[in-house]
């Protein structure tokens, strides 16, 4: 799990918490950013919630690095598309260099962008401070089907492997004279000979994996035991209930103001 593994092994604040507590927190932040007015909420949750937590967990630099790298294309696209083409009756124009932006469009881009940072940032911080195996174990122990947990973990491990194989297939086909560059049509035609060997090879591997699953009696009924125990102190259980209550209150408040206003 080199490229897809976000988890960073540090001894910070969030790393000590139960995975479920962190997941509930992420859910509350995402809920709040849609239920409370933008862009202030987004900015406050990012600056007052996610950033201090990332600092306390000793992952702040990597957190900001990945957050900006993944969201920058979306944010730029948002400002350009909505800033220039937002459908509005407001004629106010903001000139930045040679570009004439619509003020309502920029406002819309700012609101959406501030939300996006929280929506992407909360799960990112969760996965940077939580080993995926621990999160899946905690979820299974609180009632998620074991098969779903298995699928999640295996898929996470397979992504780098399949990605490597895709590069290998591309090189092999190029050695046979396949064009993978050029105009749009040529590029689309180049994709097909890459996809089919990749998928057929993967399906052959699926067969071996299925036999391994049967050999180890994965589907056998009865209770299973765990190698590791995940601590879950009462204080954290209370915190989870409090956070879910807060989220519920926000939803009720939002629905109430929607119908009265």
């Amino acid at each position, binding site marked *: 799990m080199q490229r*897809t593994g976000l988890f960073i092994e540090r001894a910070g604040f969030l790393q000590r918490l139960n995975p479920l507590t962190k997941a509930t927190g992420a859910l509350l932040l995402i809920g709040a950013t849609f239920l409370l007015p933008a862009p202030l909420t987004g900015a406050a949750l990012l600056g007052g919630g996610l950033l201090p937590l990332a600092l306390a967990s000793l992952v702040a630099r990597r957190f900001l690095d990945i957050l900006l790298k*993944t*969201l920058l294309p*979306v*944010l730029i*696209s*948002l400002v*350009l*598309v*909505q800033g*220039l*083409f*937002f*459908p509005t009756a407001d004629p106010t124009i903001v000139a930045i260099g040679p570009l004439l932006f619509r003020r309502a469009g920029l406002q*819309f*881009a700012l*609101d*959406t*962008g501030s*939300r*996006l940072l929280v*929506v*992407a940032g909360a*799960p*990112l911080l969760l*996965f940077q401070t939580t080993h995926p195996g621990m999160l899946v174990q905690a979820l299974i122990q609180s009632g998620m*089907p074991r*098969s*779903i947990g*298995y*699928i*999640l973990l*295996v*898929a*996470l491990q*397979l*992504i780098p*492997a*399949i990605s490597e194989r*895709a590069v290998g297939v591309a090189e092999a086909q190029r050695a046979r004279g396949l064009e993978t560059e050029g105009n749009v049509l040529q*590029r689309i035609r180049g*994709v097909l000979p890459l*996809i*089919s060997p*990749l*998928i*057929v090879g*993967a*399906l*052959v591997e*699926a*067969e071996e*994996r*299925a*036999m*391994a*699953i*049967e050999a180890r009696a*994965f*589907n056998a009924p009865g209770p299973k035991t765990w190698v590791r125990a995940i601590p879950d102190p009462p204080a954290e259980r209370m915190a989870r209930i409090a956070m879910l209550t807060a989220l519920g209150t926000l939803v009720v408040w939002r629905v109430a103001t929607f119908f009265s206003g």
Partner: protein
Amino acid sequence: MTTSTTSQRGGLSSTALASIPIAIAINVVLGQLVQSVLKLPIYLDSIGTVLVGVLLGPLAGAITGLLANVIWGLTLAPSALPFAAVAAVIGLIAGYARQYGAMHSWWKMALAGLLTGVVAAAISAPIATYVFGGVTGAGADVLVAMFQSLGASVLGASFMQGAVSDPLDKTITYLIVWAIISALPKRLLARFGANAQ
């Protein structure tokens, strides 16, 4: 081959358990490739979902789509996460397409792809509008800009972008899946039991 797909107590067979993670990885790798390298107004991020739906039925297809977008969204592309519900519906439709005999000929698969695309566009548009303001940083954004400049609202432009991209994308996806399944060795297809021919 009689016992290969029968260990099914927990709902999913061992074949499904083995195939779904691989299909998820294929979705993410190809989706990422098309989105970040090719910058085309199509996605090709549901080949694994449609493949599993067609081979193993609606439930397995829906689970593949849902979890693929959850994993993709949480690891590489945050913009995929809110579309998890759409991906689940795509897998569901693929499973039913198989039951209605879509695999019998390539044009039935193309038709099923077209239908899936229209449904996907209709569910995606509100998500694209309210979560992303109409854009996702991918090649299709240029279509949103075009429709808005022609006078459409953000929701309208998002739907029109989907109505252009999705049916095309899903038709290509279904045809690729048809070609792949046709090329699979019979011994391997037997693994997928009564669902495959």
